[in-house]
């Protein structure tokens, strides 16, 4: 399992949505399955919605994404699930069944609403954020923290690994990405 690593420059960091989007394209992501999250809404979801390189599927509830991504994977189509951590928590049974037990490549990008980006998720002021990494570790799900631009380099290798190994992945977005 990939350990979450906080970058040294988190405190002074910035995160640009355009860099994340470039990494998703380089990773072969064709489908984005999303329910709006205020952390990623303007910096990621809005530009993705305008980008003709992606097919955006808007869902009503986050666990739908787990089934859709699984179905797509049978045709070797890559999908990114873009949700808030509350939706991740709400989808745990689907992630357990499809991602962990059936070993499907479920790639999630999870916005950490209410998190202080100057802290690690385990030290977050928000209880719901503090429990995310321990849950992922208990479930054996690889995860990485993306809080500053330097962290964007983690995205493509993590997605490639998830599809190569047919395993779930959680990329935790620790601060609101800038839209530019």
């Amino acid at each position, binding site marked *: 399992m990939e350990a979450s690593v906080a970058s040294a420059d988190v405190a002074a960091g910035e995160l640009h949505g355009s860099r994340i989007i470039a990494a998703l394209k380089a990773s072969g992501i064709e*489908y984005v399955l999303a329910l709006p999250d205020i952390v990623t809404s303007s910096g990621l979801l809005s530009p993705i919605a305008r980008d003709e390189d992606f*097919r955006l*599927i808007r869902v009503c509830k986050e666990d739908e994404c787990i*089934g859709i991504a699984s179905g*797509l994977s049978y045709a*070797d189509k890559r999908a990114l699930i873009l949700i808030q951590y509350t939706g991740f928590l709400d989808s745990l049974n689907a992630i*357990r069944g*499809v991602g962990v037990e059936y070993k499907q490549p479920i790639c999630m990008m999870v916005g950490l609403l209410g998190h202080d980006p100057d802290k690690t998720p385990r030290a977050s002021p928000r209880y719901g954020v503090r429990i995310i990494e321990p849950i992922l570790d208990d479930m054996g799900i690889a995860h990485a923290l993306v809080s500053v631009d330097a962290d964007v380099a983690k995205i493509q290798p993590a997605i490639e690994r998830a599809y190569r190994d047919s395993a779930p992945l959680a990329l935790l977005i620790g601060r609101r990405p800038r839209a530019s």
Partner: protein
Amino acid sequence: MMKRDECFKILARHIGDAALVATYSSAVDWVDIAPRPLNYLSIGAMGLDSSHGLGLALGRPDRRVVVLQGDGSLLMNLGSLVTIAAAAPKNLVHLVAQNDTYEANGSQPIPNPKIDFAAMAKSAGYAASYDFADLRIFEQQVAHVLEQDGPVFATLHVAPTKPLKYDYPSLYAPEKRAAFKAEWNGRD
């Protein structure tokens, strides 16, 4: 009300090389009638049948996908009606076997057996929506239901005809997922 096995036998005669997504009682009855590599049974969490079906349909728009979902399952994922209608896959047929119970969990009743799933699908924006309770009418129309541009929805009002044996390890065996994928990608 149709006998479920008789209804599924008619469906099996028309399924062709479509993927068939099913779980729980519908899956057990279906697999008994139509064992085939293109049965997709590993849903992972109750209610996700329709979402898996949407993913399959989007991934292979050149092939047909039939979801055979239980009423209890769809109740857990009613939002998928809206998501599917918005994504509008022409190759997706969404059937719901409505027996008004959680049959696999002790045949307890669903919260409201009067629910009209076909009306919900229609208002969600499906291209077409049907409601079948008569086996003869279903047999007359099933080919059209399966072949027209989707997303198409149909409620099948069914009653179980025999006690089912739920062999989940067999239904969800990894080799069946591998066989499905090979078959799903193996044809143009």
